[in-house]
C-alpha cells in the first residue's frame, strides 16, 4: 500500500519502528500517524459506531470527525488520524475501558500574548508572519506539523505571482513555515485549543495531551483560522469503511505516501474532486469515474481536460445512490438525476471500486469561534455557518478575528490574503508609529483579494463576503443604536 515512487513527491520516511495492533506486531515509520500506519498494513476498519456497532474507517483524516477513535496504550478514544505512532505503541479496538494505571500529573502553564492565532494553515501562518513584526505572537495547531491543508496540495496554484501562483501547495507550506520559524513566534504543535472564555479579557485553554500540559492563555486579540471540514453526503452505505472525505484521502496519499486503495470513485467534479483524481492517477491508483450532480463540471476546465485525457469518465447529472460491500466498500451504484434531483429509475450503473471519495464541499469549522459569542449566521454561499466579520476580518466580538476557510469556503490564496489582513489589523494598536504604513499594506491586500474574486470562480465567494460584511454592519449598527 505504500507509494515508493511518485512523479512529484519524495517521501522521506523516518526510522522503521514496530507497534502492536490487537496483539499483532506490525511495521511503521516514524513520522506517520497511527491511522496511516494501520492503513499501510491493510487495516481499514478502525472503530465501531456507538449504538449499532457498524464498522468505521477514517473519514476526515484531520481530527475533525472522530470516526477513527481507538485505544492506544490503554487510553480509549484516541484520534488515531492525528496521533503520531511511536516505537512499541499498543493499538487496540476501542472497548472504552479505562486503564488501570495511575494518571500522570498535569502541568498547568500560564501564557500571556498580544496575539494568539489558532490554526497553522495558510491563513494562520500568514497572519502570524504579518503580526510578528509588531507584537508578540503565539501560534497553536493541533497537528504535529504546520501548513494545514497545504501539506497535501501537490498541484500548482493559480492566481498572481504575489500569492505564489505556479508554486505547489506543499512548497508554499514549506516557505510559510520557514518564514514563521525565522520570526520570533511562539509555536505550539500537537496542542488543541479546547475552549474560549471571556474573563473581561480573551482567554483560551489549550491542551497538549502527549506532554500532559494545559495552557491557560491570556490574549490581547485572537485570530481564529481553524479551517473547514468535509461535508458528508446522504446515501445508502455512506458509513462503510472506504467512504472517505477527499481531503482525508489526500492526506493519506500525499502526506504519508499510503495508497487509499486500488480503484476509486469520486463524488463531485469541483476543483477538489478533479485535482484529487489527478493526484490518484499520479500515485498509480485507478479512478473508475467521477460523478457530478450538476449538469456541468464545477472546477477549472484545464483540470477536467487533463482528467478526461487520462481516460477517466466524468458523469455529470449523476449521483451516488448506494455504496455496498461486506464491512468495506466493494462497489457503488450511481444513477442519473432528473431536473428535480431524483434518481431516474433504470439509469443505474454498478461501478466496481474499493474506495469512494466525497468531494462535495466543505463547511467552516466554527466550534471554537462559536464559543466566543461572535455572531454566527448560516450563509449558503459561504458553505454554511460562518462568523460575521468586517472587511478587516474582525468579528462582532471586538478583538476576535477570523480568516481563511473558517471565514468563507474559498481557497488557499485568499486564505493567505485574509490571514495577512487579519494579522495586520489586529496589531494596529500595538504598532506605535507604523499605523499608516500598516493601513496602506492592508489596503493593498484588500485590492489583491478584490482581483482574486473577479473571475468566474470568485462569484460565489464574493456574494458570500458581501452578505457577511452587510450582516456584520447591520448587527453592529443595531448594537450601537440600542
Amino acid at each position, binding site marked *: 500500500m505504500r507509494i515508493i515512487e511518485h512523479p512529484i513527491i519524495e517521501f522521506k520516511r523516518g526510522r522503521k519502528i514496530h507497534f502492536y495492533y490487537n496483539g499483532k506486531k506490525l511495521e511503521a515509520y516514524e513520522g506517520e500517524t497511527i491511522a496511516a500506519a494501520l492503513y499501510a498494513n491493510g487495516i481499514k476498519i478502525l472503530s465501531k459506531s*456507538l*449504538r449499532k456497532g457498524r464498522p468505521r474507517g477514517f473519514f476526515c483524516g484531520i481530527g475533525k470527525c472522530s470516526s477513527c477513535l481507538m485505544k492506544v496504550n490503554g*487510553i*480509549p*478514544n484516541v484520534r488515531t488520524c492525528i496521533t503520531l505512532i511511536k516505537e512499541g505503541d499498543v493499538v487496540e479496538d476501542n*472497548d*472504552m*475501558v*479505562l*486503564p*488501570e494505571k*495511575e*494518571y500522570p500529573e498535569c502541568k498547568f502553564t500560564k501564557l500571556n500574548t498580544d496575539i494568539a492565532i489558532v490554526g497553522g494553515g495558510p491563513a494562520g501562518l500568514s497572519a502570524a508572519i504579518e503580526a510578528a513584526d509588531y507584537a508578540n505572537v503565539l501560534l497553536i495547531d493541533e497537528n504535529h506539523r504546520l501548513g494545514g491543508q497545504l501539506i497535501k496540495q501537490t498541484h500548482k496554484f493559480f492566481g498572481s505571482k504575489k500569492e505564489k501562483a505556479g508554486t505547489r501547495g506543499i512548497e508554499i507550506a514549506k516557505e510559510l513555515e520557514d518564514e514563521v520559524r525565522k520570526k520570533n513566534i511562539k509555536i505550539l504543535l500537537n496542542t488543541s485549543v479546547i*475552549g474560549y*472564555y*471571556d*474573563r473581561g479579557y480573551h*482567554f483560551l*485553554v489549550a491542551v497538549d495531551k502527549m506532554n500532559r500540559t494545559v495552557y*491557560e492563555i491570556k490574549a490581547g486579540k485572537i485570530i481564529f483560522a481553524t479551517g473547514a471540514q468535509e461535508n458528508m453526503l446522504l446515501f445508502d452505505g455512506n458509513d462503510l469503511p472506504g467512504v472517505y472525505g477527499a481531503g482525508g484521502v489526500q492526506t493519506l496519499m500525499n502526506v504519508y505516501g499510503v495508497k487509499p486503495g486500488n480503484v476509486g470513485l469520486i463524488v463531485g467534479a469541483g476543483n477538489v474532486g478533479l485535482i484529487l483524481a489527478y493526484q490518484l492517477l499520479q500515485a498509480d491508483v485507478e479512478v473508475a469515474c467521477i460523478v457530478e450532480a450538476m449538469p456541468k463540471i464545477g472546477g477549472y476546465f484545464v483540470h477536467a481536460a487533463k482528467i478526461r485525457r487520462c481516460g477517466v469518465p466524468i458523469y455529470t447529472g449523476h449521483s451516488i445512490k448506494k455504496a455496498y460491500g461486506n464491512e468495506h466498500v466493494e462497489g457503488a451504484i450511481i444513477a442519473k438525476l432528473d431536473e428535480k434531483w431524483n434518481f431516474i429509475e433504470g439509469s443505474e450503473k454498478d461501478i466496481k471500486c474499493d474506495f469512494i471519495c466525497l468531494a462535495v464541499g466543505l463547511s467552516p469549522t466554527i466550534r471554537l469561534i462559536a464559543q466566543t*459569542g461572535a455572531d454566527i449566521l448560516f450563509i449558503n454561499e459561504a458553505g454554511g455557518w460562518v462568523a460575521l466579520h468586517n472587511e478587516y476580518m474582525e468579528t462582532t466580538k471586538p478583538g476576535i478575528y477570523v480568516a481563511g476557510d473558517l471565514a468563507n469556503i474559498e481557497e488557499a490564496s485568499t486564505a493567505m490574503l485574509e490571514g495577512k489582513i487579519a494579522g495586520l489589523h489586529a496589531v494596529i494598536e500595538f504598532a506605535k508609529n507604523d499605523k499608516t504604513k500598516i493601513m496602506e499594506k492592508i489596503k493593498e491586500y484588500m485590492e489583491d483579494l478584490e482581483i482574486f474574486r473577479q473571475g468566474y470562480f470568485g462569484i460565489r465567494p464574493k456574494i458570500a463576503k458581501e452578505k457577511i460584511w452587510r450582516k456584520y454592519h447591520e448587527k453592529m449598527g443595531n448594537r450601537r443604536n440600542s
Partner: protein
Amino acid sequence: MKDRAEVVIIGAGINGCALAYELAKRGKDVVVLEKHYICYGATGRCGAGIRQQWATKENALLAKKSVEIFERLSEELGYDIGLRQGGYLIAIHDEEEMRQAKKNVEMQRSIGLPVKIISPDEIKEIAPILDPEGMEAIAATFCPTDGHANPFKTTYAYARAAKKLGAKIYKFTEVKDIKVKDGKVEEVVTNRGKIKTKYVVNAAGAWSKEIAKMVGINMPNKPVRKEALVTEPIERLFDCMVISFKHGIYFSQQEEGQILGGIPSPEEKIGYYTEPTFSFLKHMAYMLGKYAPPLKHINILRQWTGFYDVTPDALPILGETNIEGFIQCNGFSGHGFMIAPMVAKLLAQLICQEKLDMPIDRLSMERFKGKITKEKAVVG
C-alpha cells in the same frame, strides 16, 4: 395560533409539559407557550437525577410519589424515558452530617423509603470506582430506588402524549403580558398574538419571577447560574448518582456511558449570564478525580450553564394566588425534574377541582410571610 383556551401554560420544560399532559388527559383545552423550544430552560440542562432522600417531608413525599409515576411512565406515555434506578449515594463527611443523616433517614424510612446508612467499604461495593478517602467520606446514605431519567426523552414523551390528547404547544412564542380584569386573569399577550383564558400557569422556570410581575405579583425567587459538564462515553462503571452536600458535587453515568455532573462554580453569580467558566471546568475535573480516580483518563466533551430558580427555603411554589386563575408552578431550585410527575398531577387536580392526592397549601407563597424552614438536603 388559537385565540382562546381554558388553560395557558407558560414554559415547555418538564413541568409545563407534564402538566399539559395531565390536564389534556382530564379533557381540558390546553395551550403551552414556549419562548424558545422544548427543554430550552433548566430541564434540558439538568442532571435529571431522581432522589427521594430529602430532609423535609414535603419534598420526600413529592419525590416518592413521583418515582411511583416515573416507574410506569414509559408505558403510560408510550415512549421510553430512559429511567435507570441505580440509587443515590450521598456522602457523609463528618459527625454533624451524620447526625442530620440519621434524622433524615428516620423520616424517610417512616414514609416507606428503603434508605440505609452505609460504610466506606459498602460505598466501594456499590461503586468500585469511588475512593472514600478522596471523597473524604466517613459513610454514606443510599436509597436503591433513586435514579435518573433522560430529561429530553421524558419531556418529549409528555409533550407528545399531551399533543395526541389535543394540547397545543407553541414554540418560539414569548409571553409579553398578562391582562387581569377584576382580579381575574383574562388574556395572555404574546409576540404572535393574544389568547383569552381562564387559567394561566406560571411554569417559566428561572424566568417565573418576570412572568409573575406581569400580574403584579412580586416573587422572592432568584435565578442562580449552575454549570454542568458531560464526558465522552466509556464502559459502564457505576449505576448510582453520587452526591455530596458539603462539596456540592453530583455526578452519574448516563445510559450511553457518559459521565454527567456539576459542582458550584467558584465564579457563581446571580443573574442570567449563560457563559460557562473555566474555573468550573477545572474545579469539577479536579473533584471528579478525587471522588473517582479512574475518571482522570476521560475526555470532557461539553460544558454548559443552566439556571436554578431558587426560593428562600428551597421548596417549590405551587398553587393558587390572590389573582384568580393565576397558578404558580415554579421555584424548583435543583430538583424540579424529579418531582415534576407528581407536581403536574396535583396541579391538574387543583385546576379540575378534584380531590388532591396530598395537600399543597403549605407550598403557596403565603408561607414566606411567617418563619421559614429551609430544606437542608440541597446540592449545588
